């Protein structure tokens, strides 16, 4: 039983990171209908920023985190403006290919600049795990879950109540009408990318604390899994991404613990395929059809 609970906690830990990244995917998809393949690589950029600022520039952890978030946001905005914006009215396949191209570019640039060798992420704390009646929770797990929950609550509030949040929802509902209503669509889209990347930046920092290895391709796998989380919850829906992230994390952890560690990736993709086939709109999604 304790083992099970411990595994569940592991799942929550991974899941909250997936959820943070998934939010970026889902917001961007909701607003411009683009699978931003490069979102996972924003995670990688954040990780390198953190490593460089801490080890080479000697930043303290909170300062480094701020730098990470800033760097991710800047990259996100630049990518949106340069690569995605000109393609907004092109066929979806073009923007999808561009996104794949951006992802490849970021990875290979990092490879040229930093080399393939993975770099260690500095240890930032020495707090032993908290034990309670056979259960144990590490400090990083607690921190990650707490920070992600706080961010998700904040984001939900922002989108529900804030003026910019309303603009976002309007643009995702109908791009052209929103424009007619006097909403600055470009600003709103940029803001969406910025928020998504900021979350990825924080996620990246937390991710590196848990998995202290930084390499050029580190973003692909968590990026892909986060994307699957977003689809699982219903892409374009913010609570969906959060739910999807947690479901994915727990499913992955329990698969590894009780079914097969070797097949855990296959199970993850299997979940994706089943969801897409049974309910393509995801757990919380609602159907919409093309107007004929």
């Amino acid at each position, binding site marked *: 039983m304790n083992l099970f609970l411990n595994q569940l906690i592991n799942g929550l830990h991974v899941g909250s990171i997936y959820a943070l990244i998934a939010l970026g995917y889902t917001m961007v998809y909701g607003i411009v209908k683009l699978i931003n393949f490069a979102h996972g690589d924003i995670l990688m950029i954040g990780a390198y920023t953190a490593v460089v600022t801490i080890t080479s520039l000697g930043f303290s952890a909170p300062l480094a985190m701020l730098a990470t978030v800033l760097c991710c946001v800047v990259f996100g905005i630049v990518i949106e403006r340069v690569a995605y914006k000109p393609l907004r009215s092109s066929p979806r396949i073009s923007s999808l290919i561009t996104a794949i*191209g951006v992802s490849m570019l970021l*990875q290979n640039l990092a490879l040229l600049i930093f080399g393939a060798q993975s770099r260690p992420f500095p240890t930032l704390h020495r707090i032993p795990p908290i034990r309670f009646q056979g259960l144990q929770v590490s400090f990083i797990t607690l921190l990650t879950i707490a920070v992600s929950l706080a961010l998700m609550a904040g984001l939900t509030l922002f989108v529900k109540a804030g003026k910019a949040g309303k603009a976002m929802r309007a643009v995702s509902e109908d791009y052209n009408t929103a424009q007619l209503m006097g909403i600055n669509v470009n600003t709103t889209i940029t803001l969406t990318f910025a928020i998504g990347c900021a979350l990825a930046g924080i996620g990246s920092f937390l991710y590196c604390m848990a998995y202290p290895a930084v390499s050029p391709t580190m973003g692909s796998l968590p990026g892909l899994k986060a994307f699957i989380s977003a689809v699982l919850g219903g892409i374009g829906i913010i609570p969906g991404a959060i739910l999807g992230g947690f479901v994915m994390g727990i499913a992955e952890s329990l698969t590894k613990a009780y079914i097969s560690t070797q097949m855990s990736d296959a199970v993850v993709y299997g979940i994706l395929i089943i969801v897409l086939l049974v309910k393509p709109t995801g757990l919380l999604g609602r159907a919409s059809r093309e107007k004929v």
Partner: protein
Amino acid sequence: MKKKTKSVILNLFSLLFFYLLVVALTFSGGMSDYLSNILVTVCITVIMTASLNVTTGLLGQLALGHAGFMAVGAYVSAIFTRTAALDFGLSFPISLLLGGMAAALFGMLIGIPALRLQGDYLAIITLGFGEIIRVIIENLSVTGGAKGLSGITRMVRAFSQDSAVSSVIQFTFVFLITVLIIASIFTLGRSRHGRAIISIRENAIAAEATGIPTTKYKLLAFTIAAFFAGIAGGLFAHQTSIINAKMFGFNKSIEYLVIVVLGGMGSITGSIIASVVLISLPEVLRAFSEYRLVIYSLMLILMMLFRPSGLMGTREFSMLEAWEGMERFFRRLFKQKSSQTRMPFQPRYDVWEGKPVLETFSLGIAFGGLKAAEKIDLRLMDNEIVGLIGPNGAGKTTVFNLLTGVYAPTEGQVVLLGKPINGKMTHQITQDGIARTFQNIRLFKSMTALENIKVAFHSRMHYSPLSGILRNAQCLSEERGIDIRARELLRVFDMEDLAEVRAGSLPYGKQRKLEICRALASNPKVLLLDEPAAGMNPSETVELMQTIKTIRHQFSVAILLIEHDMRLVMGICERIYVLNYGRVIAQGSPEEIRSNPEVIAAYLGTRKAEEEAAVHA
């Protein structure tokens, strides 16, 4: 014609020259193992990218797991040559075929569920399947698990004791397979099946409404692409002697995708050129290899930003002409008589005089709680022109969608020519005799006007994909017949001179006409026109009215039309149904409708209607 023949001969000669050059170089020792190895790599890449182009270019669906099919082919083929106690010269071709078939089977298995999805989701699901194939291969014992298979016979040395002879046989074999695969993709692309696949890329909804079973053709495209990828995989396994699952991961799929995109999605020649360039470049420019992936990704982005159609767009070389010329040449050579022209197009002469051709009985549909249409009873007599009018949002287009099976009715029945058609797919209904046009024009924009019409003839041709690839007598005679019929149809609409113009670049009025023309090509008994006069100026509208009257007799169809232009409606309709809030509120002759208070109320609001009624009273 003469110029064409010249280009045919030149093309054939350059292919032959290239082949002979390689053979001569090999025997004279001028062809190192290094170069012959690269040539094989180029051929394999050409097969992979050309086949990927079938799904990504012709069908227009992004597939991200193409290397997975290659893996299946590689493993099946390698396992076969390792275990079969046959001479390599025999077991190898069989193994390639088996590998291709296994991959095709996987393609189909994946395709059946995956093709319910579109666009982004399909891309993601192919990615997922590609990765699952990798994980499974890594964990099976028959595939050698993580280590993979090694010690696979290398074809370059296996054909003969003499290394030069063996090398030449290898090249001949690989080159021939590549040429054959490319040729069959070309010929298939030109057949009715290829047109069906391309029409799905252009506009899936219109394709279905034109009588194309879209799901079947998506599946066909996937299966064919997987089959060729499987063969490429078999070649690859026998080139490297060792295979493991990591060789066929996501990155490999992406590398092939890059080549396809650069060459131009939809252009097989583009894929060939891009393969040759991108494989040779790193070999020639050593410094390039370090920056290879950075440059690839940059090219990918820049290409999408500035030239999204790739190097070649959807254009092809004179290859097609080369192929047709070769055909003619061989036919003459073997004294094969040019078979007769089959005319597949016969109008439906079913006698339904005085009987309704189309009837609905309390037809309705509810989206969630909202009833978009209910208790619709329509009746269309033979050769009748009937109008369907109503204010915006009244449910007119919904009725069309119900009639054509785009939406499945939640209540009621549709009876066409005395048979119920409920629950049939759109393309079946089209084949049964209902054709339609769309409110927002849905043509196959990058196809020519003539091809647009040929797509609609699809269901009345019968040759199989295989005879399309072989271009046998049946295929040729049917194609010839279709060509004549399609031109005839264009002539009816005074558009014969526009036959070779891309539909997307036709003027608006002509596009509307072409859409009607395409609808007629599927040989309907009932023609549904959704706002045919929308956006037309008065003189164009008058012309359209004339056309509608003409086709009714010439093609013996009943016409149901939605229109807001009351002059048109009142001018040509014999009867009119009025729809409001999803219900039929009135029906009758134009005069009856014009004075019906309920109709006036629906159009002008209740108070005004009361005033009008008061005036009349």
